């Protein structure tokens, strides 16, 4: 299949619209760094959204269950393999997110496969509260790190409102 630049942009936009539509209803997840660790909060509707990944790593996501499960298992596999062959100290949230990001990007950009429908949040409890690291990972593989506070919600507008 050959794409003209126009087709490519159009195809990506359609995929993006398709995913955003499905994410719009998702209930948000909040992450807050505090003295005791990282607090993850969500409104539990019908499905479980907060998960343990590794000794100091947690994962939360909204989206389609099968896709959340795929990413969850994939990062648990990566973490345990790394933690066993090297050391638990080498399993950091940055490595975990970077490891899963290319697969998401690939699925999103590949017109022959279904993209993953999810927006994910990763939290790592540091040795001190200011060392806690929070990552938000999008369905297109893009991620950003923040400290202290992070949020994922169904739409960018909702996220903006929660941040305010």
């Amino acid at each position, binding site marked *: 299949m050959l794409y003209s630049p126009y087709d490519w942009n159009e195809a990506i936009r359609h995929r993006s619209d398709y995913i955003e539509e499905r994410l719009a209803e998702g209930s948000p997840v909040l992450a807050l760094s505090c003295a005791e660790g990282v607090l993850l909060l969500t409104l539990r509707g019908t499905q*479980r959204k907060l*998960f*343990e*990944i*590794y*000794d100091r790593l947690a994962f939360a996501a909204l989206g389609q269950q*099968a896709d959340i*499960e*795929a*990413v*969850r*298992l*994939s990062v*648990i*596999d990566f973490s*345990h*393999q790394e*933690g*066993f*062959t090297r050391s638990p100290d080498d399993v950091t949230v940055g490595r975990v997110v970077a490891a899963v990001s290319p*697969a998401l990007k690939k*699925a999103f950009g590949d017109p022959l496969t279904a993209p*993953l429908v999810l927006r994910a949040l990763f939290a790592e409890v540091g040795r001190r509260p200011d060392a806690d690291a929070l990552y938000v990972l999008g369905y297109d593989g893009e991620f950003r790190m923040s400290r202290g506070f992070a949020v994922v919600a169904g739409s960018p507008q909702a996220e903006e409102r929660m941040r305010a």
Partner: protein
Amino acid sequence: MSGADRPTGGDFLELLRRQGHPLAMSATGQRGYEAPAPLPHFPVAPSASGVVEVHGTTVIALKYAGGVLNVGDRRATAANAVMYDRAEKILAVDDSTLLAISGAYAKALEVVRYLRHAFNYYRRTQLQEMSLEGKLSEVSRVIAQNIASAMSGVGAFIPVLSVYDRDRGEGRIFFFDGLGARFESAEWGAAGSGSERIRGAFDYVLKTKGPFGQRSLDEVLGEALVLLDIAAEMDAATGGYEKVLPSARTVSAEGVETLPEERLRAAVERIRRG
């Protein structure tokens, strides 16, 4: 997304095997915990490998009212040399499981590291705790897969597993043979070179003072230290409590706890006063 295509079902060994991890591959390339088989044409005898292994020696598990106490001396030996007098042989695998290790120290530590990951991996992927039966099978499996290596004279180890069984509300002790067979013990378990020489002493204490499982932790701690001291006198590879205090941990409804040195020192004092 390899995890999603073919879920491992929470089996950590399977995950390692897929990555081609040497620990998960046997010499024939089949699934197995053990790495290389002995080299061909070498006589199969402990000295043949040219490796002098570091061994952990005596570990003791005793029930007490409320859970199970594990006590181990701190000595690790290689042939007749004392390699290390701060070896930690009582290891927590998870919040309700203690593994007391004897035999090849390197292999035993590796197995504990493996089990910790295997239990956690199962719990995190499957979103439920591995059952006690499942955990016991996993321990049997790693012992069984170590047979070829143990036969060639390297890496034999024997653990004693202590758990707190929440369904029954009591501590339980399991011991294993070199092939991975599992046995449950009513009152006590012991492993290591020193334990062989004091087996009869356990029964003597049981018959004269009643079941360990009905006595207080401090009483049972005293018994464990005396038994360890006897083992140290009978077995050169076992350190007692004179030079370095043994390590002692409990597993109970509250989880795994390490007994502080002061408590051990007080128990030793009581023994000395007689």
